[in-house]
């Protein structure tokens, strides 16, 4: 975006004969919008472009290797390497399974709680909603640590109570689902509840007069009316699920069941900072961004079709 400084002498008069005070207002909007536009350019667009460029190169030793490594242009080889890597495919499988459990559980729980809160007979609404919302205020790392201790044998109670080992190789997935569900359910409950409050009360009264019970009213009237809000929450949750990183990384200090490439984000981290293979790391992280974009486009497509 180029910033054009207006000529204050006004060489040519504007065609639409704007009112006089408008004349100097051409620079001001740019001044207001520029800081964010610059940030967007420098911290989103340029880094993505640079990563795209790096993802097309790889470091190779040339000749006998006496000259040190060289960056070699390899077309899409890094992408092919990532997609062909069994560790990467396994990590995609892990987040896919995680998302299939976490997304319906967390959003379903949030919706049920929001509907309960919105019911006519509830007392102490503020207390319930605040209590369930609080985990949102806990940093992901800290939430991970709290639950990691709660899962640990001899320290937390969960290891004794649960019939399986929450830190065992089959137990870590539900354990990670629980960590993320704990963090995000309250936040989404508040979003849904806020949307439910905007449903016109006379519509609800009409349905009660017609003899519909509270459950029927909720399913037939309230849920369809907040569907757009639910789709937005779905998009954010799906994107967030793909990025899963902090919880499994924290658990790695407590169990060996989480490998260093357990999720795609961990794979990127491993490629960049342990293998020092920037080309492969850049390719993997762009594949991740692309997958998020495609999935959110898909969900929005679905939502547009549904609300028609």
């Amino acid at each position, binding site marked *: 975006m180029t910033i054009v400084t207006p000529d204050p002498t006004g060489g040519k008069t504007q065609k639409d004969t704007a009112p006089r005070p408008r004349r100097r207002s051409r620079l001001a909007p740019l001044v207001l919008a520029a800081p964010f536009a610059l940030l967007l350019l420098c911290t989103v667009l*340029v880094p993505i472009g640079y990563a795209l460029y790096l993802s097309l190169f790889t470091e190779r030793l040339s000749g006998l290797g006496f000259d040190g490594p060289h960056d070699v242009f390899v077309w899409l080889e890094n992408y092919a390497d990532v997609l062909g890597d069994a560790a990467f495919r396994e990590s995609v499988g892990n987040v896919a399974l995680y998302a299939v459990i976490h997304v319906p559980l967390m959003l379903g729980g949030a919706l049920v709680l929001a509907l309960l809160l919105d019911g006519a*007979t509830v007392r102490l609404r503020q207390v319930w909603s605040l209590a369930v919302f609080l985990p949102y205020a806990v940093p*992901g790392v800290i*939430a991970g640590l709290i639950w990691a201790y709660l899962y640990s044998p001899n320290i937390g*109670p969960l290891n004794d109570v649960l019939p399986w080992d929450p830190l065992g190789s089959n137990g870590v997935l539900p354990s990670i689902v629980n960590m993320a569900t704990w963090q995000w359910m309250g936040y989404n409950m508040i979003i849904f509840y*806020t949307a439910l409050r905007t449903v016109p009360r006379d519509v609800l009264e009409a349905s009660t007069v017609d003899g519909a019970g509270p459950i029927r009213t909720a399913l037939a009237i309230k849920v369809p009316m907040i569907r757009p809000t639910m789709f937005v929450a779905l998009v954010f949750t799906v994107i967030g699920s793909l*990025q899963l990183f902090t919880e499994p990384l924290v658990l790695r200090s407590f169990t060996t069941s989480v490998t260093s490439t357990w999720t795609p984000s961990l794979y990127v981290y491993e490629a960049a900072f342990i293998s020092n293979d920037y080309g492969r790391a850049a390719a993997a*992280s762009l594949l991740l*961004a692309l997958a998020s974009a495609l999935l959110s486009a898909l969900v929005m497509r679905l939502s547009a079709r549904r609300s028609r």
Partner: protein
Amino acid sequence: MNAPRGTSRWMSKSVVHTLLLIAALYSVLPLIWLFTSATKNVGDFSTTGAFELGDWNLWSNLGDLFAEEDGVFLDWVRNSLLYAGLGAVLGALICAACGYAIAKLDFPGRRALFAVTLAGVLVPTTALALPLYLLASELRIVDTFWAVFIPLLTNPFGVYLARAYAEAAVPDEVLEAARVDGAGELRTFFTIALPMMRPGVVTVLLFQFVGIWNNFFLPLVMLTDPELFPMTLGLFQWSSRVSQFPQYSPLVITGSLLAVVPLVIAFIVLQRQWRSGLATGSVK
């Protein structure tokens, strides 16, 4: 006819409240565990029950926490406050200005900027962290304050919200009147529009504060100097030593409590602000 109906109402009322109680306990019990554990020494930590209080060692744990590694924890607290406090104030102002400009003013590239902003909302921060690191290392600003601070100012969702607030809260007639009075656009924004958008801007500020305070991946890839760490990264680093050195556990847990308490208090105190802010934002 009245009696069974009354009974079923009572039944459904108690079912509703039981479910809400279970959800509230699920959400709050881990935080209570964090508090009770922060009061225990290493011995009590594994011998007393999870929610039981042992001997009261909170003060000595806090003393140990701030004494560890020449008081590096205090640096982490200061850094978290700087990244999140300064970042949220500056970030919210930048969002408000841009959102207002998109909603209420006309300038070349307005639609394109909004389209890119919306796309930016969907670009996950985790996928961005590595590209940012690669760029920062090319520019040789890795392991500096700015390498973490500047990217976290960018908040496309905040601009989206600010635009909705500006559209809802700032009437065109007021702006027209200000223009007729001869006020410049910038002055109109700061003295008239910004105060009208205040509840929305406070919401953006609060959520950006939380976002930066809780951020982890970016500092993890950018920083190696412990004196620049935010609390999240520092506590994570200590926690990775716990399996070899169990004496780090009380430090990690007491530090975690200190990282959580300010935000919990902020959300309780500012309840009306963020609830109404979310309400305005969700309508649009």
